C-alpha cells in the first residue's frame, strides 16, 4: 500500500475550495459573541467587513508570494528569501501553530458534542474517534484531501444556507437598530476579533506549491475568502436580528443556538440542530485535517529522511494530548483568544518579511534553481 506519492498536483480551483473550507472553522460558532462584545447593536457587520477586507488583502499578497515560486515547497523558497536558518525557524513556528490549531479544533468539537448531545460519553472517546478518522485522511494522498473538500463543499453550503434562510422569520427589526453607533475603538477591537475567523487562508503559502500552473491561484484565494466573508456577515446580522445584541453577548455558542430555534415540522427535521451538527462536524474535520496535513508536510520538508507515516504517528499522540490539556472552558476560551492574536501577529509578520524580501531580492530565475 503506497500512501504517499511525490508527483501529486492539483488544479488552482482546488485552492479556492480548500481556502473556503479551511477558513470556516469552529470559530464561526462563537464569532458573533466575540464581535458583539465590542460593538453596539448590529454594528458588528462593519467590523466583519473590515476584517474581511484585510483578510482579502493579506490572502492575495500571501498567494502572490507563493505563486512567485511555482512548484517550490515553502522551506525552499523561504530559505532563498530569508536565508536557511530563519526559514527553518519560521517553519517550526508554523508547525507549532498548526498542531495547536488542529488540537484546538478537535477539542472544541468534542466539547460541543458533549455540551449538546452526549452527556456521558467521555471527551477522550469523542476525540479519539475523531482523530482516528483525521489520521486516516492525512495518511492518504493530498489529492484526496482536496477532493474531500470539493465533495463536502455542497453540503456545507447547503447546510449554511438553510441556517441562514430558516430563522429569517424570527428576525426582529428592533434588534438591529440603532445603526452606526459604535465608536472607533469598538470597531477596531471587533475587526481584530473578526480577522481571527479569516486566518484559514494561511494554507495557500504551503499548498500553492502543489499546483502545476498556479497562474490563477491568487484570484482563487480571494474567491475562497469571499465565501466565508459573505457568510459571516449574513450570519452575524441574522444572529443579532434574532437574539439581540445583549443576548448574543451572553450565549456561549450563538450560532448553534440559532440552529436550535429552527424547527421544521416533521419527525426527522423537528430538531434542526442535530442535522446541522453534521455540517459542523464536516467543517471542523476539514479544518483539523488540513492543519494536521500542513504540520506533517512542513516536518517532512525539515527532515526529509523521516517517512510521512512516522511523522503522522509521532504527531497524532501529541495533538491528542494537547487537545486533552485544557482543564475547563475558561482555559479553552483563553487559548482561543491568545492563539488568535498570536496567529494574526505571526501571519502579518511573515507576509511582511517575505513580501519585502521578495521585493528586494526579486524572483528566482530558472537557472539559479
Amino acid at each position: 500500500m503506497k500512501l504517499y506519492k511525490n508527483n501529486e498536483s492539483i488544479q488552482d480551483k482546488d485552492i479556492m475550495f480548500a481556502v473556503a473550507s479551511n477558513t470556516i472553522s469552529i470559530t464561526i460558532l462563537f464569532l458573533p459573541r466575540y464581535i458583539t462584545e465590542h460593538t453596539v447593536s448590529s454594528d458588528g457587520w462593519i467590523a466583519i467587513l473590515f476584517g474581511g477586507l484585510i483578510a482579502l488583502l493579506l490572502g492575495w499578497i500571501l498567494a502572490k508570494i507563493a505563486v512567485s515560486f511555482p512548484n517550490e515547497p515553502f522551506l525552499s523558497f523561504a530559505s532563498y528569501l530569508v536565508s536557511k536558518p530563519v526559514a527553518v525557524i519560521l517553519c517550526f513556528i508554523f508547525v507549532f501553530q498548526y498542531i495547536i490549531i488542529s488540537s484546538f479544533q478537535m477539542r472544541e468539537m468534542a466539547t460541543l458534542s458533549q455540551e449538546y448531545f452526549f452527556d456521558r460519553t467521555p471527551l477522550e472517546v469523542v476525540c479519539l474517534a475523531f482523530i482516528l478518522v483525521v489520521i486516516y485522511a492525512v495518511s492518504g494522498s493530498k489529492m484526496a484531501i482536496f477532493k474531500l473538500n470539493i465533495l463536502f463543499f455542497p453540503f456545507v453550503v447547503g447546510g449554511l444556507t438553510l441556517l441562514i434562510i430558516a430563522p429569517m422569520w424570527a428576525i426582529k427589526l428592533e434588534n438591529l437598530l440603532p445603526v452606526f453607533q459604535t465608536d472607533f475603538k469598538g470597531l477596531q477591537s471587533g475587526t481584530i476579533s473578526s480577522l481571527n475567523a479569516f486566518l484559514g487562508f494561511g494554507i495557500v503559502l504551503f499548498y500553492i506549491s502543489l499546483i502545476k500552473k498556479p497562474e490563477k491561484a491568487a484570484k482563487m484565494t480571494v474567491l475562497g475568502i469571499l465565501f466565508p466573508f459573505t457568510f459571516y456577515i449574513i450570519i452575524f446580522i441574522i444572529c443579532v436580528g434574532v437574539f439581540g445584541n445583549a443576548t448574543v453577548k451572553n450565549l456561549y455558542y450563538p450560532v448553534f443556538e440559532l440552529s436550535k430555534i429552527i424547527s421544521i415540522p416533521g419527525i426527522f427535521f423537528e430538531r434542526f440542530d442535530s442535522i446541522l451538527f453534521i455540517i459542523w462536524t464536516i467543517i471542523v474535520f476539514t479544518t483539523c485535517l488540513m492543519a494536521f496535513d500542513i504540520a506533517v508536510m512542513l516536518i517532512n520538508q525539515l527532515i526529509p529522511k523521516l517517512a510521512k507515516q512516522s511523522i503522522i504517528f509521532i504527531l497524532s499522540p501529541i495533538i491528542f494530548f494537547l487537545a486533552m490539556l485544557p482543564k475547563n472552558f475558561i482555559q479553552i476560551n483563553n487559548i482561543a483568544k491568545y492563539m488568535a492574536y498570536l496567529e494574526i501577529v505571526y501571519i502579518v509578520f511573515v507576509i511582511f518579511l517575505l513580501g519585502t524580501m521578495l521585493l528586494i531580492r526579486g524572483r528566482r530565475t530558472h537557472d539559479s534553481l
Partner: protein
Amino acid sequence: MIPYKKLIFLICCLPLTAGCWDNLEVEDRSFVTGIAIDLATNKDNNKPAPSEESAAERDSQGQQQQNSQQQSNQPSSGQERIKQNQNESSLQTDERVLNYEKDEDYEQNDNNKFKLTQQLLNPSTFSSQQNTNNSNATSFRNLSQTGDTIIEMNRDMIKQAGSRTNVTHLNIVLFSEALAKEEYLFADLMDIFLREKEMLRSVKIAITEDQSSDYLSILPENEKIPSKYLSKVLENKSTLDIAQPLTVGNVQSYLLMNRSFIIPFISQVNTTTVNYDGVSVYSGIKNKVVGNLIGDEAKGVNFIQSKNQTGTINTKLDDHDVTFEILNIQSKISLKDKKMPLQFDIKIDVASGVAEQYGHLDVMKEENYQKLKSTLEKEIKEITEHTISILQNELYTDVIGLNTYLYEKHYPLWKSIKEEWEEGQHYFIKSDIQVDVNATIEKPGNIIKSH
C-alpha cells in the same frame, strides 16, 4: 493464518460498533411538558402538626399566606403548634409525622425556598391511549418537590418519577404572582431555562394569580394535557387585553438590557378553565413584578405597541352600546422635543369595523359615521392615556417601549439618560406623552340596522 488473524481483529472491533454511549429508549423517558414554580409556602407548618388539622385546612392556610399582609401572622401560629406538640408523647408525634407525610405531597426539607411542580407525560401510556381510546385515564402526572434550585428539585424528582425526565418538549413555565413579586427571584429562576442545553428558547412564560401548581391540574374536557391547554390559551391573538406569548429567549434579552416588560397573567375560573386576565408588569430596575394591568389597562399597552393583536372595543353612543372590532393597529412613537422633560408623540392608526350595535343607528349616514368614528377615537385615547397614567404614576415602569424607541432612534440621548430613566431622575415619569388616535371604520357588517 492470515484470515484467522483478520477474523480475530474483526471480532475485537465488534464492541466498538455497539453504538451510542448515551442511548436512552423513548419508553424510559418521561417528557416534561409544563413546569410550575411557587414559593415554598409550608415554611412554618412543616413541623409535625396535630393530626386534627386536616390537609384542607392547611391548604387554606397556604392560600392565606399568599396575601402578603397576613404573612406576618403566620410564624406565631406555627410556634403555637410546636408548643402543642411538646406536650404530646413522642410516640404520638411520630405517628403524626407519618400521617402528616401521607397527607401532604412528599416534601422533605423545612427551609426550602421553592416548590417545583412538573407535568410529566408518559409516552408509552400516551400511545396506548390512542390505540384503545376508551379510558380517560391520565396520560400525565404532576410531581412536586421543594428545594432551593430548580435543577436540584428536578434531580430529586427523578427519585419519584421512576424514569429520566426529559425537557426537550417543555411547553410552558408558570410562576406564581407571589414569587414574581419577590425581588430577583424571577430573574434568578430564569437561568436554568436558558442554561440547560436541552431547553428550547421558545418555552412560554406566564404568571398565575395564585398557587401556580394548581394550574397544571386544570383539565378541560376536550384536552388531554393541561399544559397544552394553557399553551393554547397563551397563544390567543384575538383579544386586546393580552400580550404576545412571552418566551424564555425574550426574557433573557429584556433582563440583560434592564428593560421592563409585560408577562401574561392568568387566573383560575374553575377546575376546568383558566382565564387570561391581562398582563403583569415586570420592572427591569426593581427586578420584580410591580403590578398587573387587567382588562382595559392592558389594552392600552397593545394600542401603543401594535403587535399584530386584534380585539374589540366597547363604547357608548347616545346611551347605546356599540362594540367595534379592531382589525389592525399601526402606532408610531416620535420624540418631539429633546429637552427635558421629553415630549413624546404617539400616533395610533386603527382600522376597525362595527361588530355589534344596540339601538337603531343608521350606519350608512355620513354624520353617524363621523359620530362613531369620534367616539371610537375618544375611547381609544382614554384607554391609552389611562394606561400611561397608571404606568407613570403608580407603577413607575415603562412597558410601552419608549425606552426601546430612544435606544433605537436616539442612541446618544438614550446613552446619556439610560441610568435615570425609571429611577434617579425618573425621566420616564416626567416625560410628557401625547396620544393621537386616528380611527377608520372600514366595515359596517352585513346589515345597516337590526331593528
